[in-house]
């Protein structure tokens, strides 16, 4: 048996969008196979087809060298395939343990054997080397924890082919290392892994073979030895890419943001202030307090005005922009149209006497969406139908276009492809150079070092220290993140 999982001439169109066009891939058993490509290249579509969640218009899925028809995910699961989707499919009102066993519950009669479930969960977690708060609701844990549960779930269901759709998009470097180690371990154990990522370094570090998709078509499949960073990026985007690197701010003005409380900091006009820390060090609380989603524990001012008690909309009116780290529930309304998502918050300027002017709405939405290179069909399409990275661009476009005095950006390039990332970074710098302040929270150390003028490191909900931006601060940040003082 050579091809454990594959596609033969698979095509899938959504209306005018050809998400997959004559795609053929062969994923050999016992390998880590990376699938890379720009936002909207068709990676997620292909994975959903391979798992049975979606059916191709033409072409077939191949399992163990045989063409098969998957009528639903149950078929995929039956063939030992597990999918950890890009937009995690955890059920928020259930506990982690309930999420883990859902669908394959250990039972005694009609009853769920919770003791056994718990035992299995602990056993699985320790085998993989993670520790999880099993009784916490999925809604109340971080994305990385949810993702670990999803991986364990697939393993528990006996998946020996594990498809991971952008698993590292929301992870901090240390967590990424853990994940890559886990994937290598799975390969050693004879399992097959399909791995999607926009980060070429990760891909080169973990993959045996790499398939590049562009515009729904396979450009090439190569063994990792044939590729390096530059050639892979060129294959992905079809051109050479220039990276800007660290450019410190030229001029800074008055404070646009001051926060007092358990975390105290300030951001000046014309300055990007980064916030680093291992997940759960107080970043989420800080962001939520500044944006107005959590009661303040001290005074917060925006351009001199006390906003501590203002609701979100008044803060936004006062000049606050917010790129949420969770585009699915906070950043976008997934079932609303692209136009509605784009104009949200600006809609009052697009009509008169409480009536929206459809032509103005469309024009505004088109300008923003095109301006931020969103790959979409019509402005009336719902946000859900966009690929993950394109959804993120919609959020960025909406928030940056308002020209905020202060932009709070949490994981602004999460799930965005290489070109998109450099593009968004340039936009954030441009916003800064125009005299706005940016509070940047990111799990990506490289992003923080590249963009920030100063970086504030959090540990255990407090400020552990501050370092200047630029590549030289890397080790100092690492030390501060662990709560130690750099020597």
């Amino acid at each position: 048996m050579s091809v454990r999982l594959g596609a033969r001439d698979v095509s899938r169109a959504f209306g005018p969008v050809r998400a997959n066009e004559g795609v053929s891939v062969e994923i050999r058993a016992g390998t880590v196979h990376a699938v890379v490509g720009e936002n909207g290249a068709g990676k997620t579509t292909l994975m959903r087809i391979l798992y049975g969640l979606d059916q191709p218009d033409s072409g077939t899925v191949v399992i163990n060298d045989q063409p098969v028809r998957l009528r639903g995910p149950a078929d995929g699961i039956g063939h030992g395939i597990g999918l950890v989707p890009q937009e995690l499919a955890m059920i928020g009102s259930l506990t982690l343990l309930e999420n883990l066993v859902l669908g394959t519950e250990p039972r005694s009669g009609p009853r769920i054997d919770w003791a056994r479930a718990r035992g299995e969960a602990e056993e699985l977690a320790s085998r993989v080397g993670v520790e999880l708060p099993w009784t916490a609701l999925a809604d109340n844990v971080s994305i990385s924890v949810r993702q670990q549960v999803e991986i364990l779930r697939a393993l528990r269901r006996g998946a020996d082919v594990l498809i991971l759709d952008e698993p590292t998009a929301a992870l901090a470097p240390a967590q990424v290392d853990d994940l890559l180690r886990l994937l290598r371990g799975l390969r050693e154990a004879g399992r097959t892994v399909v791995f999607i990522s926009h980060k070429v370094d990760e891909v080169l570090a973990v993959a045996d073979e790499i398939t590049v998709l562009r515009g729904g078509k396979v450009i090439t499949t190569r063994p990792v030895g044939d590729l390096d960073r530059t050639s892979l990026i060129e294959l992905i985007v079809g051109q050479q890419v220039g990276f800007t690197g660290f450019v410190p701010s030229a001029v800074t003005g008055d404070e646009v943001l001051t926060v007092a409380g358990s975390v105290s900091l300030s951001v000046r006009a014309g300055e990007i202030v980064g916030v680093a820390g291992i997940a759960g060090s107080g970043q989420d609380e800080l962001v939520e307090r500044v944006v107005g989603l959590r009661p303040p524990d001290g005074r917060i001012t925006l351009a001199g005005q006390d906003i501590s008690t203002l609701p979100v909309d008044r803060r936004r009116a006062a000049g606050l922009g917010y790129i949420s780290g969770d585009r699915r529930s906070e950043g976008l309304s997934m079932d609303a149209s692209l136009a509605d998502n784009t104009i949200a918050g600006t809609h009052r300027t697009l009509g008169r006497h409480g009536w929206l002017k459809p032509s103005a709405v469309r024009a505004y939405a088109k300008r923003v969406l095109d301006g931020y290179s969103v790959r979409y069909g019509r402005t009336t399409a719902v946000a859900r139908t966009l690929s993950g990275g394109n959804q993120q661009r919609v959020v960025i476009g909406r928030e940056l276009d308002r020209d905020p005095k202060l932009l709070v950006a949490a994981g602004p390039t999460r799930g965005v492809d290489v070109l998109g990332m450099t593009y968004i970074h340039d936009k954030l710098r441009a916003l800064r150079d125009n005299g706005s302040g940016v509070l940047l929270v990111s799990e990506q150390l490289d992003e923080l070092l590249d963009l920030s003028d100063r970086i504030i490191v959090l540990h255990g909900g407090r400020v552990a220290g501050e370092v200047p931006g630029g590549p030289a601060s890397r080790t100092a940040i690492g030390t501060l993140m662990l709560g130690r003082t750099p020597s």
Partner: protein
Amino acid sequence: MTVSMLGGLLMSALLLWTPLALAALGGLLHRVSGVVNIGLEGQMLTGALVGAVVSGATGDWALGVLAAGAAGGLIGLLMSLCITRLGANEIIAGLGFTIVLSGLIGYLLRSVFDVSGTLRVAGLDPLPRILGLDPLFWLTIIFVPLIGWSLRNTVAGLRLRATGDGFDAANALGLPANGIRDIAGTLAGVFAGIAGSHLVLGQVGLFNENMVAGRGFIALAAFYFGRARPLPTALACLLFAVFDAAQARLQTAGVPAQLIQTLPYVVVIAVLTATAVRGVRGRVRRAG
């Protein structure tokens, strides 16, 4: 007020509580699976008629109750299929079924049974009493904790909750989310059908086309108020039942009937409003 009057009030409140709570528990199951069931009213009415006719024809209350449950379940399944397979809006489907069923039943009464509105069934076998109350009351009492426990601790309960909160996620895990909703919809129909039969066999002893009188909607309000948890839902039903029993007594005391009859409904609206206000206050100002 004497002790015996209070005792009498309590007994009649429990009698009125039974069908309300049964229907509400059915609606609760459907709600947990992610569908708001507006059709309980029509399903109760159908159960009442079928229960009356079958009990009369067979002379056996149990057969009447079973037939009422089966009829309600069938309608519940049809309604659910409209929602899950044909993509009908749950509100429209529920209202539509209720309106069509009450129209159909009114027509049946006149054309087949040749009566206008009220059907007296000869040989009707009323519910027996166990410890002073009927078997359906005891069944409902058992259901309250049983459903609460099952939702938490059984495979079916977990899958039901999963379908309600994460339809796509459940599907992606290979669970038949639509099928689970159909089962919940059928169960809701069974519960509502049996609840309807209680109105005839446990209370009035005859069928009237207006006898459900909004109880299906009160049941709906109850599981909303109870946030789809069995105990609070049952207590909400009890609240209505107590005021319903009280209004019946006040009527005999000479206060204008039309006014008094609205009392339990007014109480339900007041309580719902109060909890809704509290709910909004409790939430952090997330919308903005």
